[in-house]
């Protein structure tokens, strides 16, 4: 039987190749994601490994920062006098003080911001402290180290990207009191861990770093410890612990690396999941293609199968023979997919590099795990998809060999209906329970629920196909006469096949539609919210929420025509262990500009006061007059709840006065400044003046209401286009499915096509017939997909309504575009099959059996 199987695979190279392409694309995406995230992980491992000393003394509480929290710039420091104390502790070979400055950016030679939205900028003091492997973490590759104020070193890649060479004056900005910094580039710094993944390294001499970031104190943000030979990291930590001040802690290099790695793993985990979801979608769509291809191949071979059965082959042998073909296809697809995945990973690396995350220092990581997973997934999916057709092949009765017009038994519509309903109910239950629940499991359930509903639609789609195709057929017959009628009849000949082909497209379009409805609802909600709540004339902020120097607010106040100015600082704190992002501001000034509606109490204006949104207050269970404890890394600050307000776009979960931040030793650095014009001032002219006043700071942008809304929408759109691009893969696979189905049914109908040609159908009419059939399939997919997508979109919007997505917006224009895209997919998919049909030799076609 094996030889027979191999012969079959070889004899149907082209057809199986087409279905293998689905696996190639799916596995390619899968392995590409894995290779890319492995490469990223390796890259960060190198960085982490290279930058950890044997042990570190740092300020306490830093290990607990969570993702998604706003960044507080810690003002606490370790006194310089601690360095010699630690150096003389037993087992300590040396101790080096580090100054790590946050909120610094390099301005490129052309005046634009370097990095910005990509990898961070790290400002450090120069030190030759070694890492745990004994190599100095920093070295100067060219030029010399910065020795005095006015000198700086950059990593070579950043210097090149910014357009600076040794000897040039580098401009920088900080979030501190001295916002403008200029220094001469004296050398290129090199990091021992290799590449910096696109991060920018700015190196000053220690004194200058202290001036810029620590307010001139002779102090450090951390102290790196190197062990004497024979002393372990653990011993080192134990030895220095008694010498530390109350707010400091010592940790081993290993612990520090673990902390970083767990953050990196979390972020990469999100990225991996995100990419793998799309790989899974591609594979699901691809499996439709395979089910269909194998079904058609089995149908076409049913006579041959019947002869084999008549010759004594068992049912199991028939099933195994078809499954063995699937394995061959799966192996081939997975192999080619791995190759494609490698290319995709290289492509992804290039895309990320263009966003500033440069991984070129690490070569692509091709792990055994990637290979194993790719083959396992490729072969399993193919076999799984071929299982039903294989079972059906076994059901061909031997007597069929003697008959003309053998047909493989199709699943009855009634059974489909029952199966579909059950699946739909399961999907509905999953969706509902997922939507009721919270957190990661909820999202997974929603995904599974949507998947089940889509499968239910796919199973039941043959029942929909007939009522849909009949009116379309009438339309076709009207517009295209006999050609149109023939095309409709062809698509109705096997509604199961037409529907299965359309279902692949349906899945892609359903997801695209869901996403587009959610995105346009988000945009509409932003517009409505901004329109209602954005009552300031201008907002000065950083595009990605980075903080900037409070001196900018002072510059703005000095601009002629400026009336009210209300700066605010986004900060993070915890109440009862719950992470909150809060706005620190002068509430009196802020509320002269924005309408904040208090449902109870009033603004937090005095020291140790706080106002909260309704949602937060109720989830924390606090009321006006209660005292809550605000936890910062530096310690706890009790505050009184003075007011509870309605959720709004313009302020965060809670509002606190600036004085709380000062008390918590968080550095003042604004994240937004609301600005109103004085009455009667020309706002356009004022906007220009504000631009001029902030021209030195490419970190901030001046926006009016329209700019602000557009920028917010722009972020939504960016994500939307990214998701469209990723879902495009599913659409491409669906198009391949249409190509495959058409090509196979043309093979099946060779004789009929010969007859049509013999009785006078022209090549053009024949091509049109194939094209119309393809369009019928893709329109069926579009109708099912967009229908399902609208359903999902509306339901999901309803659910997230109270999370700020208040407005439902159905993007009709986009939906019309999707229909047009589906039609185009049909037309394109028909090109090759139509050409092939038109080229058939009439006589040979007629004599085909």
């Amino acid at each position, binding site marked *: 039987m094996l030889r027979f199987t191999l012969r079959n695979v070889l004899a149907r190279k082209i057809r199986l190749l087409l279905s293998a392409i689905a696996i190639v694309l799916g596995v390619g995406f899968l392995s590409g994601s894995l290779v890319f995230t492995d490469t990223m992980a390796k890259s960060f491992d190198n960085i982490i490994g290279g930058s950890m000393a044997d042990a570190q003394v740092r300020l306490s509480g830093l290990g607990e920062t969570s993702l998604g929290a706003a960044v507080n710039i810690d003002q606490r420091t370790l006194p310089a006098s601690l360095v010699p104390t630690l150096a003389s502790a037993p087992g300590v070979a040396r101790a080096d003080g580090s100054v790590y400055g946050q909120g610094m950016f390099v301005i490129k030679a052309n005046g634009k911001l370097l990095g910005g939205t990509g990898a961070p900028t790290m400002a450090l003091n120069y030190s030759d402290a070694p890492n745990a492997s004994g190599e100095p973490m920093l070295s100067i590759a060219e030029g010399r180290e910065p020795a005095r104020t006015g000198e700086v070193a950059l990593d070579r890649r950043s210097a090149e990207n910014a357009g600076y060479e040794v000897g040039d004056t580098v401009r920088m900005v900080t979030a501190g009191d001295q916002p403008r910094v200029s220094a001469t580039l004296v050398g290129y710094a090199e990091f021992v861990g290799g590449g910096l993944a696109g991060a920018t390294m700015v190196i000053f001499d220690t004194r200058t770093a202290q001036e810029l970031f620590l307010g001139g104190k002779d102090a450090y943000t951390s102290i790196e410890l190197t062990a004497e030979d024979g002393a372990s990291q653990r011993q080192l930590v134990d030895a220095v612990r008694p010498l530390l001040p109350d707010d400091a802690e010592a940790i081993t290099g290993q612990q520090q690396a673990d902390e970083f790695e767990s953050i990196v793993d979390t972020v990469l985990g999100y990225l991996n999941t995100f990419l793998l979801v799309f790989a899974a979608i591609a594979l699901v769509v691809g499996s439709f293609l395979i089910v269909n291809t194998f079904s058609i191949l089995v149908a076409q071979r049913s006579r041959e199968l019947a002869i084999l059965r008549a010759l004594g082959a068992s049912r199991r042998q028939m099933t195994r023979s078809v499954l063995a073909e699937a394995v061959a296809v799966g192996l081939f697809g997975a192999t080619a997919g791995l190759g494609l995945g490698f290319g995709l990973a290289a492509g992804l690396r290039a895309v990320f590099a263009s966003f500033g995350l440069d991984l070129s220092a690490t070569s692509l990581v091709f792990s055994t795990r990637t290979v194993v997973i790719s083959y396992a997934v490729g072969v399993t999916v193919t076999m799984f998809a071929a299982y039903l057709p294989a079972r059906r092949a076994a059901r061909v009765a031997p007597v069929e060999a003697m008959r003309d*017009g053998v047909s493989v038994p199709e699943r009855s519509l009634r059974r489909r209906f029952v199966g579909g309903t059950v699946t739909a109910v399961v999907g509905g239950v999953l969706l509902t329970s997922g939507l009721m629940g919270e957190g990661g499991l909820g999202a997974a359930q929603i995904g599974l629920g949507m998947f089940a509903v889509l499968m239910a639609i796919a199973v039941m789609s043959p029942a929909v196909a007939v009522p849909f195709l009949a009116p379309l057929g009438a339309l076709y017959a009207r517009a295209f*006469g*006999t*050609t149109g*009628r*023939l095309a409709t*009849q*062809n698509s*109705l*000949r096997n509604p199961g096949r037409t529907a299965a082909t359309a279902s692949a497209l349906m899945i892609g379009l359903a997801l695209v539609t869901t996403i587009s409805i959610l995105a346009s609802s988000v945009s509409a909600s932003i517009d409505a919210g901004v329109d209602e709540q954005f009552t300031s004339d201008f907002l000065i902020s950083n595009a990605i929420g980075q903080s900037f120097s409070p001196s900018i607010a002072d510059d703005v106040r000095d601009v002629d025509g400026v009336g009210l100015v209300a700066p605010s600082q986004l900060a993070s704190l915890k109440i009862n262990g719950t992470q909150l992002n809060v706005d620190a501001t002068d509430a009196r000034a802020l509320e002269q500009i924005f309408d904040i509606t208090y449902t109870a109490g009033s603004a937090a204006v005095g020291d140790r006061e706080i106002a909260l949104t309704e949602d937060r207050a109720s989830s924390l269970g606090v009321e006006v007059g209660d005292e809550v404890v605000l936890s910062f890394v530096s310690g706890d600050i009790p505050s009184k709840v003075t007011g509870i307000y309605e959720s709004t776009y313009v302020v965060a979960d809670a509002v606190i006065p600036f004085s709380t931040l000062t008390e918590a030793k968080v550095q003042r650095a604004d994240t937004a400044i609301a600005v109103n014009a004085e009455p009667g001032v020309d706002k356009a002219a004022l906007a220009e003046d504000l631009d001029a006043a902030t021209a030195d700071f490419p970190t901030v942008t001046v926006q009016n209401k329209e700019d602000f809304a557009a920028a917010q929408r722009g972020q939504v759109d960016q994500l939307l286009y990214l998701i469209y691009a990723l879902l495009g893969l599913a659409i491409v696979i669906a198009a391949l499915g249409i190509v495959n189905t058409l090509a196979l049914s043309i093979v099946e109908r060779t*004789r*009929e096509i*010969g*007859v*049509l*040609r*013999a*009785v*006078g*159908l*022209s*090549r053009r*009419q024949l091509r049109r017939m194939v094209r119309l059939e393809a369009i019928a399939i893709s329109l069926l997919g579009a109708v099912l997909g967009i229908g399902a997508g609208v359903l999902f979109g509306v339901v999901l919007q309803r659910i997230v309504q109270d999370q700020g997505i208040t407005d439902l917006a159905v993007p009709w224009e986009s939906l019309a575009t999707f229909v047009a895209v589906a039609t185009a997919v049909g037309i394109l998919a028909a090109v090759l099959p139509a050409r092939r049909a038109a080229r058939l030799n*009439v*006589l040979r076609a*007629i004599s085909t059996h």
Partner: protein
Amino acid sequence: MTSHHDSTRSIAARTVGLTKVYGRGDAEVRALDGVNVDIFAGEFTAVMGPSGSGKSTLVHCMAALDTPTSGTVYLGDTELAHLKDKALTELRRDRIGFVFQAYNLVPTLTAEENILLPLAIAGRKPDPDWYATVIDAVGLGDRLRHRPNEMSGGQQQRVACARALMSRPSIVFADEPTGNLDSTASAEILAFLKRSVRDFGQTVVMVTHDPVAASYTDRVIFLADGKVVDELRAPTSDRVLARMGALHPGPGTGVGHAALHTA
């Protein structure tokens, strides 16, 4: 059955030096080797010969389904060699009818739709009188709404005959139209073809193995090894069998019947 003289009949189709070669070198097969044939309008002509004699190739070339290696085919006054695919397609659609051994109906269409297909493709309306006449002649009145898979072989072949006649082609070619049918169904088809010649003045050319089928025709052309070797007018099955036996230096006289039963 009256005898005809070449000079009194107009010619519906004609081949001059028609040659068709398949393959090359050692594998070369001359299916047709300089065939000159005149097909007279309003006659029922049979083309006979042993397997591989080239009879199907001759009909395929004349029906514009195959292209000759050399020589020319005239349909009326039209020389086919000069025509491009589009013109050939229209010629097949409007001036040629074809009946296949394997019926070759379009399975998705009803009997009626199949019959009207060539006209529908051309975008023409059928002549209701002619339609009624043809339907009546093939005796399909109650089966018109059925699809091919709901009909017997004889019924399908009658639909195929009606389809061939619907556009009133100048010539109908039938390639072993009774090859798949039992004797009763065969007799019906042959009677219909004969009637279409006698009553409607249709020109019909039929390839057959079967001396009984040939006996329905006005004239039999015998082919062997790609050449016309004999011709018989007013054939009877015995005379046809005798001529066939002469072409076949094989054992005995039962060639025709053997072919009939193994087809």
